[in-house]
């Protein structure tokens, strides 16, 4: 029958078109830098799709079901068409199967269309709004030809062919021309060749990859420093470029981004789409971002930026301020159903700006200079870091003295506010009879801020110096109250040969409480409490339970804010964002405190010095911000005698001193 041959021809034509398109796109990806990969990972795609990717998509059940119906139906129908028409079998039972699969697809498409009618602002329009119609055309065409009718009239056959042609064009041309259906193929390949393979082994993979500075110095003397991070789209690894192409423009990153919410000129979705715009070899005219149909960077008009594979990204394609607005909170990465790594791309571009031009804005250059010259963020005297502990009778670690726990205070130790939290922590450690020591003048900054600001050279210098110091000391574990310190030491120092057991104070204290080594009473606090998850503790290190367990153990009920746990909203303090200080419409911590206010919380428990200072910086009537250690220390049982204050030399015998625990 003539119609069947037409369909077979159309099927093979579409398949050929798809492969030509895929080849063209592959050539663009291959312009990127070499990356380690294994072809065997192609076999892992089904598991990664159904487990890892679906795990993210299923957070929004409506769209998850819609996608299962649409994509599942489409894939099944295409496979059956390949057998029945591709191999020219034309069997009636297979036609029935095609009919079933296509009907499922059509149902999915219907619900997709339904949602598109009231699309949330984070979705892109343009070609993406067209998608329900072209997919419906494809499904209807297939339904017509697979109907169990002996003869179809000529006009219906022509209609079916036209519908199929429109639908096939969407499916087959997508990858070559960069249409919406590009996501299907790029997305699956991205799952196989993802730059962070350990994500799929059920592990967190949050450490940045080191820049091999010594190797660059050897080959890069004459070249204009192009290997320092990413200057042009072609400087990305090929699998990063592939990842950008996987984007479905669902805008979940945009909805999660604290900088976007604060009106700073960053939108992670637009950033990825800008990099897709850069995937073009059209050197002369360049491609502009005018065709982007989602929300632009707040305050920056569309159509003014353009780029191509070999032209600098900043500021031609992406504005300078956009790169420096990111707090590296990883909320976008957490939300991305296509598992794209936005933060890695941003840090790659920051590395180039910082290492080759030194153009980080605001207070960032001063901070980086402080780190180079004093090994502290604020330019302080390292010897002054532990002044707050002078009356607490704490050991300072010595070269030949073994301790169980090394307490690393971090930069917060110079901040008079955070010293209160640290003092509370020391009292808790003492109450639990732990063998611990502070680092004293030996402590240098871990370089976390430098690394997030792209200054890999300063970070590596500090990392090497710290590792050398640690190697000369004898301790079993490191405990810190600063999740940023924890992230550097635990996740990033191993690349430089420093392997340590690092614990956040909340994890350690939760262990002590559950084992009964630390005895706590019930808190006298009656105010309504909420807990704010630090990004570097939650998303970067997966610890969301210990702080909650601790608060519950002293009798608090935790009222969760709008976003909490692994999806917690950033305080605005990470990634050097308070230093680059890109202006927006409001401040990120104000948004977070508003979250707390809107559930009526009067107390915000925190577990990070950055969060403490950002949230305390909110003006006006706001809930009190207290570190978990402070709340716990106030509930210490054996603690009405005065700790650490023996009033030596004052000779005030018989004098009654009322110890006020809350003010220590």
């Amino acid at each position: 029958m003539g119609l069947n041959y037409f369909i077979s021809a159309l099927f093979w034509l579409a398949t050929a078109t798809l492969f030509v398109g895929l080849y063209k796109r592959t050539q663009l990806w291959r312009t990127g830098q070499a990356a380690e990969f294994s072809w065997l990972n192609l076999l892992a795609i089904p598991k990664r799709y159904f487990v890892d990717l679906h795990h993210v998509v299923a957070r929004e059940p409506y769209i998850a079901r819609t996608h299962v119906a649409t994509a599942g139906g489409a894939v099944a129908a295409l496979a059956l068409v390949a057998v029945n028409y591709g191999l020219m079998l034309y069997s009636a039972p297979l036609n029935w199967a095609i009919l079933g699969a296509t009907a499922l697809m059509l149902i999915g498409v219907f619900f997709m269309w339904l949602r598109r009618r009231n699309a949330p602002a984070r979705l892109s329009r343009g070609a993406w709004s067209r998608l329900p119609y072209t997919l419906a055309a494809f499904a209807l065409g297939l339904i017509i030809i697979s109907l169990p009718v002996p003869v179809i009239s000529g006009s219906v056959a022509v209609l079916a062919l036209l519908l199929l042609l429109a639908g096939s064009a969407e499916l087959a041309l997508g990858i070559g021309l960069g249409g919406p259906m590009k996501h299907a193929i790029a997305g699956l390949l991205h799952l196989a060749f993802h730059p962070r393979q350990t994500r799929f082994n059920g592990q967190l993979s949050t450490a940045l990859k080191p820049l091999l500075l010594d190797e660059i110095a050897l080959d890069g003397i004459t070249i204009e420093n192009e290997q320092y991070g990413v200057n042009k789209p072609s400087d990305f690894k090929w699998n990063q470029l592939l990842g950008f192409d996987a984007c479905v423009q669902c805008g979940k990153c945009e909805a999660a981004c604290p900088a976007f919410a604060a009106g700073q000129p960053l939108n992670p979705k637009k950033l990825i789409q800008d990099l897709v715009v850069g995937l073009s070899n059209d050197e002369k005219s360049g491609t502009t971002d005018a065709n982007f149909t989602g929300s632009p960077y707040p305050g920056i008009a569309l159509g003014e930026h353009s780029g191509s594979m070999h032209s600098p990204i900043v500021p031609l394609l992406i504005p300078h301020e956009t790169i420096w607005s990111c707090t590296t909170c990883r909320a976008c990465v957490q939300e991305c159903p296509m598992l794209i790594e936005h933060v890695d791309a941003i840090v790659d571009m920051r590395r180039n700006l910082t290492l080759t031009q030194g153009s980080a804005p605001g207070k960032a250059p001063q901070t980086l200079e402080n780190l180079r010259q004093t090994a502290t963020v604020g330019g302080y005297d390292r010897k002054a870091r532990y002044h707050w502990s002078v009356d607490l009778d704490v050991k300072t670690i010595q070269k030949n003295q073994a301790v169980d726990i090394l307490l690393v205070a971090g930069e917060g130790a110079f901040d008079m506010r955070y010293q209160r939290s640290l003092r509370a922590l020391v009292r808790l450690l003492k109450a639990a009879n732990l063998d611990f020591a502070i680092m004293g003048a030996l402590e240098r900054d871990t370089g976390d801020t430098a690394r997030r600001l792209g200054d890999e050279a300063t970070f590596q210098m500090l990392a090497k110096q710290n590792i050398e110091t640690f190697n000369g000391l004898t301790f079993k574990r490191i405990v810190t109250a600063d999740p940023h310190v924890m992230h550097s030491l635990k996740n990033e120092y191993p690349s430089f040969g420093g392997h340590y057991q690092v614990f956040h104070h909340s994890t350690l204290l939760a262990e002590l409480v559950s084992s009964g080594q630390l005895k706590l009473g019930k808190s006298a606090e009656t105010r309504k409490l909420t807990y704010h998850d630090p990004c570097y503790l939650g998303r970067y290190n997966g610890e969301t339970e210990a702080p909650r367990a601790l608060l519950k153990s002293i009798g608090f009920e935790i009222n969760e804010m709008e976003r909490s746990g692994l999806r917690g909203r950033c305080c605005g303090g990470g990634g050097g964002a308070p230093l680059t200080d890109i202006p927006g419409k409001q401040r990120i911590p104000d948004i977070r405190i508003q979250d707390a206010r809107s559930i009526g919380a009067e107390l915000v428990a925190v577990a990070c010095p950055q969060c403490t200072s950002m949230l305390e910086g909110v003006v006006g009537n706001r809930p009190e911000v207290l570190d978990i250690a402070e709340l716990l220390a106030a509930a210490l049982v054996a603690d009405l005698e005065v700790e650490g204050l023996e009033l030596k030399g004052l000779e005030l015998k018989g004098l009654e001193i009322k110890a006020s625990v809350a003010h220590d």
Partner: protein
Amino acid sequence: MSIKNIAALVSVGRHPVSGEARHCRNDSLAMTLGLALTSHLNATETNTVSFKVLHAGNANNTALKDYLALGASHIDMIDVAAESLIIDALAANLTNTDLILTGSRAENGLDSGMLPYQLAEKLGFSLVANALAIQQTTDGLTGGLEVLQFLPKGKRRSVTVQLPAVIVVHPLAPVELRHAYARQVTGTINQQASPLTHATPQEKTLKWQTETILRKPIKLKARENKSGHARMLSATVSENKGGAVVIEGNSVEKAQVILGYLREHRLINF
């Protein structure tokens, strides 16, 4: 006479808190001004202007690489045996230079701030101190430079200077320093022996004695929590300064009063 050769003199600085050797910030400002002037002149003039960065002192100091990161593509390093030879060594190297840029004073060493003056005297150059910005005079014929000078209390003064000249840059010059690691890797330091290492007829060996500074005791002062009106009154009307003399009671009661005072003014927190 048009500008052909510009030189910036850089020294090794010292971080005021950590004591780490680093670039001298003021010299970096001078160097960055020189780089900007050179690239401006090279973009507008027909003849090419050369720019060199010069350091005289200890060859082993690693802090010089900071200047590479801050934009010097190349540093000429004169190895000088004694500090008193620095002026002579620099002067011998700078005879053909039209414009010399320096900071106001070094961050360590003898730190007298006299170097630019002694150098200008030795070379017979004019000198402009406290420069904030430099540009070519608008009528190109005179071949001089227009220098914006710092004066206290926000005042500024524009002066014109004939070349050759030494221009001393003020620490508050509005220059943005950009530290880029890649430049530090690609830049080079060229070491040259000083021609004057043994010829030292006029060497004056100064006998300096270093000693640690003694920190003076600071008197703890209670913070006044008075309203603006009350402070205005206390400034205009003479009144009793407050306080109390406690003679009665035993030592514990007296101590309690002192503790009470200290707590009230938050000098102790227990």
